[in-house]
């Protein structure tokens, strides 16, 4: 399966002015510095970028975060100062104060416009200060919100070792054919395995398949859940990109299989395929019981592992959340478009029995989202729901007119429009929350529905008090 193969979609796609609100892609720093515990993120940009981060990060800003701005001042913009010397000064200070395992440079619109050659400067500085420097262009000229993570992971994909790298670095260890074993030794360093028998027993539950690396930044608890889900099918996850530590980047050899957990990681997928020669498993994303099942099935299928009990598992989850599903069945939801999770969420909510008149989305990679789009279509058919209109690069002003005309039961929107919509009696949910909440896999379906239904549950109670509209006229 390759990305080149694009079958035509009967779904209707449209494109608007692109005057829509979403967070700047540099906001990915917020979750990535948390995920990769030995990292430091340096955002190279202006006061505008810095003030955004400070406001978006809320309380995190006060926790002595492992990120900072390299604030470009007038002399930097006008190129009176030497970029290399300036960055070196800052990175040396970071090394001195925090000594991270990696420094990630986050380029911004400004570095794009003034054409700072970050990719050119990094290798020299990396050699000079002895800390790996990963460069990601998470700028708002090219990317939206969650795509910031994509730029970082795409860059990081190049830093994943191959078996050969490992072998070269650990001469005392016998060069084993099984790269899993090599990986183990590498990542655990000198540590002894405390429960060798347990490990040995564990290995037997897995089928014999090609190595599989999953990509996408998820909290530790969620990666465990997804890994366990695959383990139930006999599939062993060789590694995650990223892991809790930069030094634990997984081994990726040509021909290994890779699969993403989020729909906004198309650049990373491309990078893994083109530059690491990995096989991408194009699957729907593990959001909702339906999506999770499809994701597991596609992976097993690609690895040649037979699945078992997945239908029952999916059904059991649906049964356990029927109380929530019954609250939204038959209702309508409008996606203004923000975090690129829109297609997956819409597909899941249609499966729950909702109708979706419009899906706004900042960017649509029809190849990377191919399986997801197909599943959306199939779901609509099966649920007897009209196909949603998909609007790429929407225009928020136009969308608001449409929302006031349609009056959907729920609008999933960015933070700029939620309060004004609520004041006009239209129930909303922040799209941002889906970015940060644990929504992946079977175990988190209830939490996902808790989020979706919360405003509806709350507003239903409030509506009885008769304050529906809180604006004059």
């Amino acid at each position, binding site marked *: 399966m390759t990305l080149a193969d694009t079958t035509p979609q009967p779904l209707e796609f449209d494109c608007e002015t692109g005057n829509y609100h979403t967070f700047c892609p540099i906001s990915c720093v917020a979750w990535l*510095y*948390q995920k990769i*515990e030995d990292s430091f993120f340096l955002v190279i940009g202006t006061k505008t970028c810095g003030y955004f981060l400070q406001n978006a990060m*809320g*309380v*995190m800003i*006060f*926790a*002595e*975060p*492992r990120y900072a701005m390299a604030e470009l001042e007038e002399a930097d913009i006008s190129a009176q100062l030497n970029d290399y010397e300036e960055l070196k000064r800052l990175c040396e200070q970071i090394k001195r104060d925090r000594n991270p395992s990696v420094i990630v440079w986050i380029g911004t619109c400004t570095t794009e416009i003034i054409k700072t050659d970050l990719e050119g400067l990094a290798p020299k500085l990396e050699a000079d200060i002895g800390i790996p420097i990963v460069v990601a262009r998470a700028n708002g000229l090219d990317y939206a919100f969650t795509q910031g993570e994509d730029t970082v992971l795409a860059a990081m994909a190049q830093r994943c070792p191959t078996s050969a790298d490992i072998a070269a670095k650990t001469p005392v260890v016998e060069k084993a054919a099984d790269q899993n074993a090599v990986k183990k030794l590498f990542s655990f360093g000198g540590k002894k395995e*405390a*429960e060798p028998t*347990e490990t040995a027993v564990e290995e037997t539950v897995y089928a014999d398949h090609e190595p599989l690396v999953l990509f996408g930044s998820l*909290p*530790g*608890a969620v990666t*465990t*859940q997804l890994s*366990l889900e695959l383990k139930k099918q006999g599939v062993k996850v060789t590694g995650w990109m990223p892991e809790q530590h930069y030094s634990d980047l997984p081994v990726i050899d040509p021909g290994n299989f890779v699969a993403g957990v989020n729909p906004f990681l198309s650049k990373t997928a491309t990078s893994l395929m083109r530059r690491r020669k990995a096989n991408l498993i194009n699957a729907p994303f593990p959001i909702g019981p339906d999506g999770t099942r499809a994701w597991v099935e596609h992976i097993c299928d690609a690895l040649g592992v037979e699945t078992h009990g997945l239908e029952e598992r999916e059904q059991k*989850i649906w*049964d*356990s*959340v029927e109380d929530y599903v019954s609250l939204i069945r038959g209702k309508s939801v409008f996606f203004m478009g923000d975090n690129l999770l829109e297609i997956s969420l819409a597909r899941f909510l249609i499966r729950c029995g909702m109708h979706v008149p419009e899906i706004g989305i900042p960017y649509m990679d029809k190849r990377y989202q191919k399986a997801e789009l197909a599943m959306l279509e199939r779901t609509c058919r099966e649920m007897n729901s009209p196909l949603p209109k998909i609007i790429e690069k929407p225009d928020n002003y136009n969308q608001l007119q449409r929302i006031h005309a349609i009056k959907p039961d729920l609008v999933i929107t960015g*933070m700029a429009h*939620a*309060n004004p919509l*609520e*004041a006009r009696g239209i129930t*909303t*949910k*922040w799209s941002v929350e889906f970015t940060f909440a644990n929504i992946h896999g*079977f*175990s988190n379906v*209830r*939490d996902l529905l*808790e989020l979706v239904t*919360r*405003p509806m*549950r*709350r*507003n239903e*109670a*409030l509506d009885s*008090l008769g*304050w529906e*509209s*809180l604006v*004059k006229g």
Partner: protein
Amino acid sequence: MKLAYWMYSGPAHIGTLRVASSFKNVHAIMHAPLGDDYFNVMRSMLERERDYTPVTTSVVDRNVLARGSQEKVVDNITRMDAAEKPDLIILTPTCTSSILQEDLNNFVERASFDAQCDVLLADVNHYRVTELQAADRTLHQVVKFYIDKARKHGDIVTEKSAKPSVNIIGISTLGFHNNHDCTELKRLMADLGIEVNMVLPDQASVEDLKTLPRAWFNLLPYRELGCMTAEYLKAEFDMPYVDITPMGVVETARCIRAIQQVLNQGGSDANYDEFIDEQTRFVSQAAWFSRSIDCQNLTGKKAVVYGDATHAAAITKILAREMGIQVVWSGTFCKHDEDWFREQVSEYCDEVLISEDHGEVGDRIAKTEPAVIFGTQMERHVGKRLNIPCGVISAPIHVQNFPVGYRPMVGYEGTNQLVDLIYNSFTLGMEDHLMEIFGGHDTKEAITQTISADADLAWSKDGSAELAKIPGFVRNKVKRNTEKFARDQHIQKITAETLYAAKEALSG
């Protein structure tokens, strides 16, 4: 005997003194041993009162005890009468001196001969009633005394005022936010076109009590003070009263509608619907807050509420009805008002707690592990120990409950103040949790001390590691739930799988 170091309401004489010293130009004589006169300190220090507290202690010491106290008490009454020229002197014993079983009525009679002012003995049982009940009773006693006196003198004013008018009953010194509440109620009455005939007992003159019946109705913002008086005035003069506490937008609207009904029965033609709508939707920010995104994120969070009957009931209703917050239990120390309290809150909380025992209340909080507490100073400190934020919503009073800035709890500005209190209680709690989550560097140090293997259960290495990934403030709960699940399923060793299986099973 009862073992305790904290009580939610004071002894009876405190209630009597709160009422006595609220009135203008009324003096109290406390017949009590040295040290029982700390009421004066409370008033001076907690309320930062500028005036001398009009309470004099006629000190009972060993000598007085031996000689009998009549002479000293009578002397002190007549001395104060001469020096301060009050309208009324109220005599009260304390728990201790009431045991002496002296004929205090006789003391009062004796003193009345010489004194220019009226002299009354506060009529309360110091072992059977609390501060709150005593206050209610003393207010009733004073009102009845002056109504009777006016009737005897034939100068009682029963003709109604031309404009609709109200007596606000229940505002007193050392009452929880009473001063600001009173200001807000007066503003509200002005907005409704209602004249305030009298406020009781705060700053009221006993000589004016004969004009009480002039008002169209009585307004009782609090359950704890004024009910007996309102009932008495209803029985004597058929004066209607409204006893709906105007806290929160819904109850404030209900209170105003009840006032409208009372006025219209009295011949007025009031219609406050538009006023209520305007205030609710645009002047007060509370209805809007309830609908806003900030409040949406509070939906379904767990709270517990505890306090006096008035405030605990009001806050419970606001949380449950106006903000969609789950009140796991709501409690009060006003045992004497248990029936009313149950009736008010049962619909809005999962359980009702009636208890005066601070230990029991604290234990219940610890067991419930709510996201937030609304309680008294004691619960605030329980919360501090348990790392649960607490908004203080009720007496016992404390200097922090006498803010200088305007902080009413009733009326429309009160709804705003309560929004801040509730919102800040949640967010500052959340902030602490977030600081923990985003603390950064030390996330790796596993908090393994919480992983105490119970006798019958063991946590595998991967299970423990997984548990360590759960944020600290819910980790204990997850651990308990998982262990419960493991026991039910006869699982001896808890792995990561067990943990997530438990999550799925228990949330279903």
